[in-house]
């Protein structure tokens, strides 16, 4: 998610994790849960973002972002930790309706929309928490690696 974030040559590497562990501060974690619950409030047997337990997965996502994107995201999460919930809702609503605005404002809101979705929706719908969301929506795609490995061994005999 970048408009201007890849490192210039000679600078720290683009797209590879930084040396230091990358994680969220407690405030940023709180902001992620609050933002996540606006985007994914839960619906029947589908848990909310915070209930799903997927937020911890952000540690697997952050290290691979470009530094500028990561920095923008962390700023947004810090803001979400402090803002009243209606204000967070307003941010998400404006971002989701980006194309109703004239350019270049629309581009800024599209960037925000994809950034928010890229984190919140990816974490939740990757089903890395305890919510079992894939089961609820019927996603059961698999690759039977065991059968393939067995077939390979059979061929080698």
């Amino acid at each position, binding site marked *: *998610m*970048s*408009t*201007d*974030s*890849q*490192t*210039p*040559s*000679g*600078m*720290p*590497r*683009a*797209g*590879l*994790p*930084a*040396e230091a562990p990358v994680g969220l501060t407690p405030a940023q974690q709180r902001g992620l849960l609050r933002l996540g619950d*606006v*985007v*994914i*409030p839960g*619906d029947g047997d*589908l848990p909310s973002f915070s209930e799903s337990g997927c937020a911890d*997965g952000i540690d*697997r*996502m952050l*290290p*691979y*972002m*470009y530094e500028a994107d990561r920095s923008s995201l962390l700023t947004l999460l810090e803001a979400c930790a402090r803002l009243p919930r209606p204000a967070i809702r307003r941010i*998400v609503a404006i971002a*989701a309706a980006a*194309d109703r605005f004239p350019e*270049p404002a*629309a*581009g800024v809101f*599209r*960037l925000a929309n*994809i950034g928010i*979705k*890229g984190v919140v*929706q*990816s974490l939740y*719908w*990757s*089903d890395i928490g305890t919510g079992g969301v*894939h089961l609820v*929506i*019927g*996603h*059961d*795609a*698999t*690759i*039977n*690696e065991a*059968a*393939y490995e067995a077939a390979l061994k059979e061929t080698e005999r």
Partner: protein
Amino acid sequence: MDSSSQLYWGGGVELTTNAELAILRPKVVGGGSIVNQALMDRFDDVALDDFRSASGVDFLASDALAPYYERAEGNLVLQEVPEQHRNGNAAIFAGGFERNGYRYAPLRRAQADCRFDDGNSCIECLGGCRVDSKQSTAITALPIAEQHGLTLLDQVEVDQIEERGDHVVVRGLVGPPGHQGRRQEWSAQRVVLAGGAIGNSRLLLASGYGGRLPALGRNFFTHPQFMNFGVFDEPVHAHRGPLQNYKSADPGFRRQGFKLENVFAGPASIAMLMPGYGRAHMRRMRDYDHFGCVEVCVRDTNPGRIRLGRKGQLLIEKRMDAVDRQRRRAGADAIRNIFLSMGAREVIEGDVGIGLHLMGGCAIGTDPTRSVVGPDFTLHGSSRIHAADSSIFPKAPGINPALTIAALSLKASESILEAAR
């Protein structure tokens, strides 16, 4: 999530400067051949006539490229999905085309044995094929190259290239994920750039070639793709079995500048594409297993530009103009007809455009003011730096590029070997 984060630049996607398109640019050894859906079509005369007209390069013609296409096809196992394994999404696609009088055809895929009887779902292979069926370069070309002495260095990011008389110097950062990397320099008699449209353009721009190659980074195309969904009462199970089976083969669609394919994606990607948020979005996602999905792939006419910002950062400028938007609209209208004729209760248009056929930036051509690479696949003004991938495309072909990249690479290898003698 992990495959998206780790296999693509930017931790999943990079955005164009106006955030109109999400660019999917693989950073894995083997590039697009690892993560694509391995669709292998030759370019038609429409595409190649445009290529030839834009470039002035005579061999960009069906007859002249035929031997290279044949060799490229001979290096791969090519199959159509067996009829008995085609899934519900394919049935909707085929049925909708027939009811609307549109022409369609089975896709030809580079795959050896997807072992569908084991219950495999190719949607998993968007993160790389785990049963070695997909004919990626990791399966086909690289093992042969290694037998001939290739040494592969992975986890290297090259950021400078410089031609010095009788050799070329390349500099970059080496190191595994989790480290900043250490700088290293390599020297070679020749260098063949194969970093794709963005990678090649960025490297050459960062190395100062923009001044003498005015076309560098220009004429960038992506075939903007938009996935649209039909919601059906009965489960479709679009995620099961082979992910893609059919493509449009309608001359009218070709004339209008778009093609359609049946396609799908995992829940995280579908959630990205679904418009809205909150409970309304969740209720739509609850219908995931009831989605039919067809994507419109636009043959884009408005070229983009890859350039570096003041701090050296990558900027991807790419806008859909009125013509490109009209092409998207025409494709979306055809998809609506397909879904509604098959009984969809709702049609949803995805609200994020995707660019994953990344082409141009180092266009091939005879005119150094309008192209970057000459007909001998060598940079204008250079004798030792070559390019042989989709970065040399002078236009958007409107057809999946993988097979033509392979064919042109074979042609390039002859040319480069000849120059080296």
